[in-house]
C-alpha cells in the first residue's frame, strides 16, 4: 500500500466525509424558516492578541491609586485629554467616540477585572486557555466557539451551522469538529475561479485527499456568498496588518481613507470588520464568527494619551463602527464580544509601557446587548489588593460571561455549556441579564 492510500484511509475515519461529498457542499441554511422563527442571532468574537491594557480603555480614573501607578501613562480625570465618563469610577478612552455613542444608547457593556482561568504570563498559554475554554493550560485540540456551533439548537436548519473565520489561518477558538469557512482577500482580483477546474480538482481530491477537498469546497462557496466584486473591493485590504500595506502609497490611495483618529494606519481593522459584517448579515451567510487583531503587547512607549495605544484604539473604534454599519438591520440581533488573553501590570514599567499582567477588561456591544453598564466587582488598585502585588486582581471569570452569552443569545443548553464547551465549569453560573 502506498503512503497516499494509507493516508486516505486514516483521513476518511477522521473526517467522516464520503469521498466525493466534499464537492457538494452547500450553505446549510433555510433562511425563510430561520426568519419565521423570529430570531436570527449573530455572534462575533474579536480576539485582541498581545494582552490588551484594559486599565487604559475603561480607565479607573476614580480609583485613588490609579494616577500614582500609571504616572505618565495616566489619563487625566478631567480637562484636556480626559475620557468619557462611564460611571463614577470609570472613563472610556477618548479615542473611542463611537463606542461611547453605543454606550449611551445602551448597546455596549464594559466588563472589568475579568480574566480567563489562566494565571501565568505567557501570551501563548494565555491565548490557548482563552480560546480552548479549558480550565487551565493543557493539551488543546479545539476551541470553545467551534464546539458551541455543534450544540446550537437546529432552528429549522437542515445541516449544522458553519463558523466564519476571517484570515487565511483559522485560530484555535474556531478549530474543531464543526466546519469552518475562512475568508481572505483574493490573490488576483481579476482572475475568476473556473468551476470546471474546481470540479476536476474535486474529483482528484475525492480519490486521494478528501481533507483538501472539503477545504476547497468551503473556500469556493464563501467566494460565492461574498458576491461579485468582492475581490476588487477587498484586494487592497491588508490582512490584519498593523502597519501600512507593503504595497505603499498607491494602494493606500485606492482605499477610502478613514478620517477618524487612527487613520489609514489601521485601515485593515476596518476592512476586515466590514468584511465580517457582510458575511454575518447576508441572508444565507454564517452566524457565528471570529476575527483577530494583534499588536496589543505594549511593553515600550505605550502611548496611552497620544501615541501607539491611542491610535490603535481609534482604529478599533472605527472597526466597531464598520461592524455597526455593515451589519445594518442585523445589528439589532448581534452581539460582538471583545476579549484578550490577559491584562497588563498595574504600574508603568521602566520603558513607559506595561508588562504582562492578569485581569483586564472585556467588551460587549451590539443591538442585542443590554448595555450602558460597567459590570465590575472592582478590587481596587491599592498595593494590598493587587494580584501578586503587581496586577489588577481578577474578580470575574470570563467564562461566566461567555456562558451567559451562549445560553441567552444562541440558546445553548446549560448542560452542554458546563460539560462540552467549557469543561468542568459546572460550578460557574452563566451570567444572567446580559441581553436586552
Amino acid at each position: 500500500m502506498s503512503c497516499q492510500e494509507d493516508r486516505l484511509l486514516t483521513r476518511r475515519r477522521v473526517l467522516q466525509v464520503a469521498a466525493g461529498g466534499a464537492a457538494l457542499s452547500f450553505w446549510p441554511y433555510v433562511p425563510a424558516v430561520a426568519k419565521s422563527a423570529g430570531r436570527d442571532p449573530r455572534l462575533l468574537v474579536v480576539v485582541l492578541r498581545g494582552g490588551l491594557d484594559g486599565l487604559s480603555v475603561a480607565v479607573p480614573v476614580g480609583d485613588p491609586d490609579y494616577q500614582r501607578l500609571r504616572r505618565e501613562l495616566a489619563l487625566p480625570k478631567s480637562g484636556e485629554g480626559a475620557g468619557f465618563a462611564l460611571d463614577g469610577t470609570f472613563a472610556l478612552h477618548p479615542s473611542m467616540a463611537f463606542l461611547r455613542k453605543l454606550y449611551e444608547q445602551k448597546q455596549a457593556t464594559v466588563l472589568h477585572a475579568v480574566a480567563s482561568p489562566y494565571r501565568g504570563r505567557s501570551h501563548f498559554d494565555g491565548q490557548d486557555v482563552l480560546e480552548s475554554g479549558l480550565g487551565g493550560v493543557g493539551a488543546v485540540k479545539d476551541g470553545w466557539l467551534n464546539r458551541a456551533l455543534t450544540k446550537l439548537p437546529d432552528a429549522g436548519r437542515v445541516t449544522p451551522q458553519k463558523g466564519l473565520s476571517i484570515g487565511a489561518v483559522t485560530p484555535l477558538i474556531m478549530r474543531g469538529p464543526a466546519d469552518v469557512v475562512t475568508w481572505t482577500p483574493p490573490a488576483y482580483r481579476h482572475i475568476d475561479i473556473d468551476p470546471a477546474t474546481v470540479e476536476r480538482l474535486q474529483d482528484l481530491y475525492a480519490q486521494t485527499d478528501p481533507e483538501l477537498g472539503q477545504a476547497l469546497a468551503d473556500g469556493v462557496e464563501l467566494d460565492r456568498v461574498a458576491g461579485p466584486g468582492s475581490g476588487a473591493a477587498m484586494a487592497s485590504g491588508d490582512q490584519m496588518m498593523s502597519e501600512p500595506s507593503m504595497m505603499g502609497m498607491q494602494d493606500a490611495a485606492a482605499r477610502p481613507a478613514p478620517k477618524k483618529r487612527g487613520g489609514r494606519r489601521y485601515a485593515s481593522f476596518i476592512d476586515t470588520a466590514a468584511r465580517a459584517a457582510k458575511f454575518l448579515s447576508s441572508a444565507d451567510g454564517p452566524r457565528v464568527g471570529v476575527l483577530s487583531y494583534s499588536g496589543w503587547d505594549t511593553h515600550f512607549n505605550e502611548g496611552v494619551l497620544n501615541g501607539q495605544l491611542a491610535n490603535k484604539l481609534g482604529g478599533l473604534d472605527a472597526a466597531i463602527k464598520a461592524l455597526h454599519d455593515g451589519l445594518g438591520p442585523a445589528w439589532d440581533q448581534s452581539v460582538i464580544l471583545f476579549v484578550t488573553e490577559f491584562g497588563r501590570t498595574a504600574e508603568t514599567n521602566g520603558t513607559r509601557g506595561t508588562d504582562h499582567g492578569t485581569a483586564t477588561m472585556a467588551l460587549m456591544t451590539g443591538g442585542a446587548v443590554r448595555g450602558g453598564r460597567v459590570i465590575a466587582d472592582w478590587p481596587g488598585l491599592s498595593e494590598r489588593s493587587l494580584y501578586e502585588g503587581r496586577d489588577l486582581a481578577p474578580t470575574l471569570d470570563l467564562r461566566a460571561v461567555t456562558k451567559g452569552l451562549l445560553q441567552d443569545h444562541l440558546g445553548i443548553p446549560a448542560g452542554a455549556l458546563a460539560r462540552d464547551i467549557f469543561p468542568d465549569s459546572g460550578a460557574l453560573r452563566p451570567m444572567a441579564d446580559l441581553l436586552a
Partner: protein
Amino acid sequence: MSQDAQLHAIRRFGLGPRPDALRDIGRDPRAYVLAQLDRPDAAEIRDEALPPTHEVLQFEQRRNQKRRALRKSDAPDEEEIKRLRPGPIRRRVYLEETAARVHQAVTTATPFVERLVLFWSNHFAVSARKGIVRGVVGAFEREAIRPHVLGRFADLLRAVEQHPAMLIYLDNRRSMGANSRAGQRRRRGHNENLAREILELHTVTETAGYTQADVTNFAKIITGWSIAPHRPDRGREGGTFRFLAHMHEPGDFEVLGTTYDQRGVRAGEAVLEDLARHPATADHIARKLAVHFVSDTPPAELVEKLAATFRETDGDLAAVSRALVTHKAAWAAPAEKVTPPFPYLVGIMRALDLQPRPREVVRLLRTLGQPLWAPPTPKGWPDGDMDWAGPAALRERLRIAGRAARRARGAPRQDPRSFADALFGPHLTDPTRIAIARAETVEQGLQLLIMSPEFQRR
C-alpha cells in the same frame, strides 16, 4: 526506507522538485540529503548589494536627525521632511531582502540547509511590522541565523539575542536597571519582554518551571543589552550590539537556581550558555524539529534521538540535523503536512522556472496568510499539518496556480503529462496522472498538477 524516499528527499527535506531532481537524487536519497550538510557555509548569502544592519540603522538615524533639525527651523521645508520619512527606505530594503531570500530558496543546491534556515528563522521570530525592524529583518536572518544553522545552538542563541533586530522587536534596547546610573537619572527601569520570551519560546519553555522572579531577574541581568548610538562627530560608529554599562542593573541575580555574579555583559551571556545546555531546551528543540519535518505527532523514538544528540553534542546543530536525516522514522511517516505558503510558492517557482517580482511575492504571501518575516507573535508561524490548508487559503492557491500555469513557458507547456513525470516520476498517483492527462487545456493540466496533493503535502 519507504518507496517514497525520493519524494521525502525533495519535499520533506527540501523545497520541492525541479524537473531534473529525481536524477540528481538517484538511488540513495538519504545520502543526497546528508551531503548537503557537508558544506557548513551553504546557508550564507553573500550579496554585496544588501546592506548590513548597522548601515540601515545609521542611515535611518542620520535622516531622523535631519528631519528633526528641519522641523525646528523657522520655515520648515515640508516636502523635504516628507521625503526623509523612514517608511519608503525600510520597504525598499525589505523588498531587496525578499528578492534575495526567494532567489536563494529557488536556486540553492542545498535545499535542506535552506529549510533549516526557514526553521530557525521562525524559531527566533522577529516581525517586520514593528517599525525599523522591517528594514533590518532580512539582515537579521543573514547575520544571526544563516551562519549558525549548522553550528552550535549556543552560538546561534547568542547571535540572535544580541542582534539589534531582536533587541528592538522585544523591547530590550531601552530596558535599563532602576538602580543603574541611567535608570536613576531618568527614573526608568527594566522591561521583561525579551527575558520572558527567551525562556519561554527560545530555550527551556515553561516545562522548566521558572517563576516570575526568574523572569524579572533575567530581565535585570540583560539590562544594558542595547544598540550603539551613531556618533560620527565623535568618531563612533553605531547600529551594532553594544553593552551599555550605564543602563545595567548592578548586583548578582539568580535564574533557575544559579546565581550569576559575573560583571557586565558576561552575566547575561552566562545565562544564555546555561539555557542552551538545559535539558528542557534539548527536548524543546527536538520536538519542534520533528513536528516541523515529520508530523504533528512525530514518532517518540525520533524525538528522543534528536534530544539525546542535542545533549550529547552540546547542541551541535549539524549533528542534530544529521540525526534527523539518518533516523528511519523520519523517512517512514507519510507526507501529512500541507506545505506552508513560502515553500509552496518557492516550489512553484522551482518547478515552473518562474521569476515573479518581489512585490508580487510579498502580496501573495500575505494573501496566503504568511506575510514574509511578519509572523503575528514572537512564537512565529503555526506549524501544524493542516494549519495552511484553510478554505480561503486553498481557494487562493487555486487562483495562484491558475496564474502560474498561464505564465509558464517552455517544457511545462509542451506537454503537462511528461512535465509531471519529470517532476515526480513514478511517485505521481494514478488519479493525479489521469486528471492531468484529461485536462481540457495545457493550463488546466498544470493548474491541477500544482494543486495536487503530491505538490501540496510534504
